[in-house]
């Protein structure tokens, strides 16, 4: 159930991926997480079958002025694990039902979907269900019309995916968030939410909450993992399995003692970039008293007072020489991109955990997403001002999407920002220097995705969105169909129609 975590200023939503065994839930969540740039924690698997769940945590989007934190959970499909599955589904704000739509498997999917619908559509307010028709690449995959025909008796939205390639996965997720937010609206918006930190804050909490639920068979002791009938060998995994160090702290082990990081303006030269201005900036941030601590995933971070400190999980080096080599690499990639980067960035090497940790300190700037969200909620905003900003942002995103990925800079509504002279700057955390080889997203589809997400944030705008849409339509009418403003018009049109 969605909650309002006031302390962290986020709305916490749970998106559950349900479906029959082997339908592609895990594959879906992994593809999604990769696209979102977050990690998936999977506490246990036997022969590729999920024993507990897959879990990912993602912060993105804004609702009524607050960031949205999504807890993404996939359930185990095996029938013997039904108790765990139901426990995981119970707290969902929206269910993405992953169905195997190959002819041979479709009937099973429809039967289970029927059960899920009875349970969740009957709740008050109903928990939305999206049918994610998966394995669309298979030759025997049912045509969409037949699926629709089978579902004539109830409000279930359908999306189509090929989870193994990731096709359609993100779109389904974005749609799911929309549906989950509809439910939040139905209980009165943010004001209707319980104010509390989420009872389940990470994968370990979640594991604890369901580990006691056994497979429900007499010959299994409770909590013992199973491999179902199709699996040749029973698993001998312990229960509950400890999460490996890369996935989070072990459940019963004390995390290793580590000292928090605080920038030191008196640190030695040669370990700091830029060599001169860097030290001046360190004096400034030192006075803020901001202290970074490790996160569950092994990275370190802190933010506040207009600054953000970050160190990747893999940015710890045994020797000073190795650390310096990495520092120089990072410094070079910063220098090479200086014209694109937001100002006031510091790289440094500090002693930590018995080695040397590489840090980036970045002065925070409003991203275009945050700026638009603020503008749309401002009391004196006008439709003209909002449409102008939207068009400008669409064109900037388009330009950055063409330029940045080749240079290794991720381009999203959260990384693009403007300086006082209207120059476009990269305001995100820098990725590691070697990452320039990453897959470059297709510009048009990436732009559509960003614009859709941006206009979704305007749900609470203090102006009539239909007027905004009309103004944008007017501008778009003389432009080619591929123009960013055209794509913006379409994205906004969808929201207004909904």
């Amino acid at each position, binding site marked *: 159930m969605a909650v309002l975590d006031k302390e962290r200023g986020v709305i916490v939503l749970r998106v559950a991926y349900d479906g029959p065994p082997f339908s592609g839930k895990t594959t879906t969540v992994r593809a999604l997480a990769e696209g979102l740039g977050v990690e998936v924690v999977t506490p246990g698997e036997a022969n590729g079958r999920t024993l507990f769940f897959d879990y990912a945590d993602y912060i993105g989007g804004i609702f009524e002025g607050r960031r949205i934190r999504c807890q993404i959970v996939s359930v185990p499909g095996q029938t013997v694990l039904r108790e765990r599955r139901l426990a995981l589904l119970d707290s969902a704000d929206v269910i993405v039902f992953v169905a195997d739509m190959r002819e041979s498997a479709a009937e099973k999917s429809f039967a289970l979907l029927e059960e899920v619908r009875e349970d969740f559509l009957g709740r008050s307010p109903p928990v939305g269900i999206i049918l994610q028709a998966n394995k669309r690449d298979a030759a025997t995959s049912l045509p969409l019309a037949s699926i629709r025909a089978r579902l004539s008796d109830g409000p279930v939205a359908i999306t189509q995916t090929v989870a193994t390639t990731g096709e359609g996965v993100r779109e389904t997720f974005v749609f799911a968030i929309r549906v989950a937010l509809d439910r939040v609206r139905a209980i009165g918006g943010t004001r209707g939410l319980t104010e509390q930190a989420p009872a389940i804050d990470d994968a370990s909490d979640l594991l604890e909450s369901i580990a006691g639920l056994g497979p429900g068979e007499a010959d299994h002791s409770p909590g013992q993992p199973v491999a179902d009938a199709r699996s040749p060998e029973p698993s001998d995994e312990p229960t509950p399995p400890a999460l490996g160090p890369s996935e989070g702290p072990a459940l019963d082990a004390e995390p290793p003692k580590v000292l928090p990081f605080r920038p030191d303006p008196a640190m030695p030269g040669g370990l700091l970039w830029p*060599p001169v201005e860097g030290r001046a900036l360190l004096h400034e941030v030192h006075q803020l008293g901001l202290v970074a601590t490790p996160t569950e995933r092994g990275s370190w971070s802190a933010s506040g007072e207009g600054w953000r400190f970050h160190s990747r999980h893999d940015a710890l080096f045994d020797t000073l020489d190795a650390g310096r080599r990495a520092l120089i690499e990072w410094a070079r990639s910063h220098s090479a991109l200086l014209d694109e980067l937001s100002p006031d960035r510091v790289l440094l090497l500090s002693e930590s955990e018995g080695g040397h940790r590489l840090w980036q300190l970045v002065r925070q700037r409003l991203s275009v997403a945050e700026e638009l969200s603020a503008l749309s909620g401002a009391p004196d905003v006008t439709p003209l001002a909002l449409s102008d900003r939207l068009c400008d942002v669409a064109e900037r995103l388009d330009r950055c999407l063409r330029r940045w990925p080749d240079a290794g800079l991720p381009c999203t509504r959260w990384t693009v920002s403007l300086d006082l002279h209207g120059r476009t700057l990269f305001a995100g955390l820098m990725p590691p220097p070697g990452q320039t080889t990453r897959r470059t997203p297709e510009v048009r589809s990436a732009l559509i995705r960003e614009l859709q997400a941006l206009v979704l944030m305007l749900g609470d705008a203090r102006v009539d969105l239909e007027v905004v849409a009309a103004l944008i339509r007017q501008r778009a009418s003389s432009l080619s169909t591929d123009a960013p403003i055209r794509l913006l018009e379409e994205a906004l049109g969808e929201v207004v129609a909904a």
Partner: protein
Amino acid sequence: MPSEQELTEVLARIENDASGFIAASLVDLESGMTLAVKTSKQGFDLTAASAYNSELVKQKLKIMRTLELDGTIEDMLITLTDQIHLIKLVNPGTFLYMAVDKAQSNLAIVRMAVAKHVKDLD
């Protein structure tokens, strides 16, 4: 790439061979970061000097590109009233920066000391 310690040892050998030595550093051209430093004079801000000199080299390279000059920079010399500063390109991405006291040294000594050891810095 040699370790910082090895590089610092090379700088020490240059110091030995160049009378009037004040300071020397090996600098990454692109980022202006020092890879190794050696100084015999308190209060000489070698980190800042290295960073500013990398800007100088980059500017000079840019000028050469603009003028479509084909050659490469071998070294750059700056003579102050009391000091000599030499910048010697070690490879296209790294340079040695060195300052000596003019009263105790001369350009020939500096160039020789550097030429003798520069290949160990690459």
